[in-house]
């Protein structure tokens, strides 16, 4: 069966009684909707062209340009008889030109096309003209500010009654955003396919296991035997300023890791957070582990002039694990972290947690810490401008969360978010982020595209959408250019940019920092 026969057969399909009933229902709905709209305003306003499509008084070029206008497309018309080129106001807008100042000519048009695309565009136009066929093409346009935009055009050939070409109409629109999205997807797929897992498991600065890999290691050890876990906090003895010097912090982490590695020899070590290290000591008795932990802490405390710091403030927390008392690895880590905080609180080098807290007790400690952080707003928001080098423009700002430590210094949120997710307290954190980010966005000129990262766990909460809606209304945010992203933000690399707005400090707005 050829296509014409298929079409003829399909055309025999006549409306069923059900379809007639649907038409009657639609009729009633349309009448009601029209009445409602007339009550709301004196006139029904809609983007339509009331001209009769069969009217002969409109030329083909004008008809196409008007249809393009309805779809918010720009149009370019070239007439062979007069050799005149013209483009619509919408096209001027897309080109970034003011309609009145634009000199419209073929040479001016080709000057706007990116030099790398000019030959291809000319060739495609030539083909379309010769074959009297339409072509779709995507080309880059260099804007006045030096940035690049991707435009998609449908180039159509106008003909006279004898099928002779008389001109060209090209209708086009900006597809930079969709091009960008597609390229991001491709880049993400390429990255996912090419990143070596074993490299991702090792911290690049210190050469120690990453937090995730270390937790896995603790999990394996605690399921198969007994042993101890030591978590150490290594901070510079004094820091007058709360400013962040990430390069210096990296140097300190690398130097401390080297000292640590020399002392513990073959035991698995991991970088758990900013200035926080873990040492796993499998198959050790508590007494033996305590003496080794004391040695580690003492050695680090005795170290002088490390990475520009005269002395280090070191505290350790020690806990034991036993395969007969199953505890999740993250909970063990939490216990050890609580232990070093107790050591610090009591101004002791090491706190040994002889008795594991109960699950309820542990959860309560952790939840209280998280709630406390939310209530006291111990967070900072950063806007990281994402600059597209190919387009030469900032395509969006990603809102990043940082947790403020005891001294008010921002730290990467991975550990905190991991715990908050584990303890089911992430929703409160995400609501804080949404409220504060939207408030800041609402106060700005909202010229950029912002991306706010939210946990997948929070997205599953049925009430979150209402919360976002109400925050959007409350802070007067235009929701169109914003994304919410539920990708795993806990494993993002910390950004290396200065904070652009910290709660309570009245710094500049995120979008203006880039």
């Amino acid at each position, binding site marked *: 069966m050829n296509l014409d026969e*298929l079409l003829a057969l399909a055309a025999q399909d006549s409306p069923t009684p059900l379809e007639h009933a*649907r038409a009657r229902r639609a*009729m009633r709905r349309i009448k009601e909707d029209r009445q409602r709209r007339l009550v709301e305003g004196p006139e029904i306003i809609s983007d339509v062209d009331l001209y009769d499509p069969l009217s002969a008084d409109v030329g083909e070029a004008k008809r196409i340009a008007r249809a393009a206008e309805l779809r918010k497309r720009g149009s370019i018309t070239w007439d062979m008889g007069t050799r005149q080129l013209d483009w619509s106001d919408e096209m001027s807008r897309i080109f970034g030109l003011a309609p009145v100042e634009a000199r419209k000519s073929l040479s001016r048009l080709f000057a706007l096309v990116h030099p790398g695309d000019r030959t291809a565009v000319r060739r495609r136009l030539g083909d379309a003209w010769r074959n009297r066929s339409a072509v779709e093409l995507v080309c880059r346009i260099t804007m006045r500010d030096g940035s690049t935009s991707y435009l998609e055009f*449908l180039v159509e050939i106008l003909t006279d009654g004898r099928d002779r070409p008389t001109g060209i109409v090209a209708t086009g629109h900006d597809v930079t955003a969709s091009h960008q999205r597609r390229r991001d997807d491709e880049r993400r797929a390429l990255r996912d396919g090419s990143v070596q897992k074993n490299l991702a498991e090792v911290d690049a600065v210190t050469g120690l296991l990453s937090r995730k890999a270390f937790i896995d290691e603790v999990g394996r050890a605690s399921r198969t035997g007994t042993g101890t876990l030591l978590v150490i906090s290594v901070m510079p003895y004094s820091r007058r300023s709360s400013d962040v010097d990430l390069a210096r912090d990296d140097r300190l982490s690398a130097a401390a890791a080297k000292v640590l590695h020399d002392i513990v020899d073959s035991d698995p070590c991991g970088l758990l957070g900013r200035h926080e290290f873990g040492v796993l000591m499998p198959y050790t008795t508590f007494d033996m582990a305590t003496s080794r932990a004391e040695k580690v802490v003492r050695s680090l405390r005795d170290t002088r002039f490390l990475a520009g710091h005269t002395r280090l403030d070191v505290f350790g927390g020690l806990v034991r694990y036993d395969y007969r008392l199953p505890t999740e690895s993250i909970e063990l880590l939490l216990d050890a972290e609580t232990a070093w905080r107790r050591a610090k609180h009591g101004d002791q080098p090491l706190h040994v947690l002889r008795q594991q807290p109960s699950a309820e007790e542990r959860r309560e400690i952790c939840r209280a810490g998280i709630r406390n952080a939310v209530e006291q707003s111990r967070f900072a928001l950063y806007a990281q401008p994402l600059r597209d080098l190919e387009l030469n423009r900032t395509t969006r700002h990603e809102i990043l969360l940082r947790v403020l430590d005891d001294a008010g210094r921002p730290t990467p949120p991975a550990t905190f978010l991991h715990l908050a997710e584990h303890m089911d307290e992430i929703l409160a954190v995400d609501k804080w982020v949404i409220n504060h980010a939207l408030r800041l966005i609402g106060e700005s000129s909202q010229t950029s595209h912002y991306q706010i990262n939210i946990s997948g766990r929070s997205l599953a909460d049925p009430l979150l959408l209402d919360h976002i809606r109400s925050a959007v209304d409350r802070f007067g945010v235009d929701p169109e250019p914003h994304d919410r992203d539920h990708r795993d933000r806990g494993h993002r690399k910390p950004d290396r940019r200065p904070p652009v707005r910290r709660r309570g400090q009245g710094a500049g707005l995120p979008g203006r920092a880039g």
Partner: protein
Amino acid sequence: MTSARALRSDDSGAQRRSVELDGSFVRFLRDNYSKILKFLLRQCFDPHLAEDALREALIVAMDKWEIVSKHEKPVYWVNKTAWHKLLTLHDRQKWKDTVPLENVEDEVVEPASSHEAEMVLRHLLSRLPLQQRAVLALMVEGDSDEQIALQLGLAVTTVRTHKSEVRKKYRELFQSGSDGGRREPR
């Protein structure tokens, strides 16, 4: 007295005209609603999206029926307007296309009825870009190249290009032969 009577006569004339227009619009809808909806459904496969686009177009058509009803073929105007509304809604969805599940990788057999022909047609439509879908959807209605061009706001040469692409795609999808490819329904 005379002017009051004239006013009353004007009022009743306007009312009569309004009733006539309403009647004419209802008749138009009865005859064409299913056809226009099918035209839209052949392009987006999403009944809600198609109905939304058509409702938007018909509300305006009803409001401006005095002008639209005088067109040579009002259905062309509604087709054109509803198509543009559909494209706008489609743009807002950021081109997340809906593909009917029943058409995914089905074995295509000889269509024996108009319903089966419609299924084969939808299979072909789902593999075409939007403008080519619209051209094919109007080809089913038996419209000429010029009529299609007028409704879709395209050049006649573009309609011909799209038609040729559609035929090529049809042959590719349903080519005959024993090479393991799909067979042309015959």
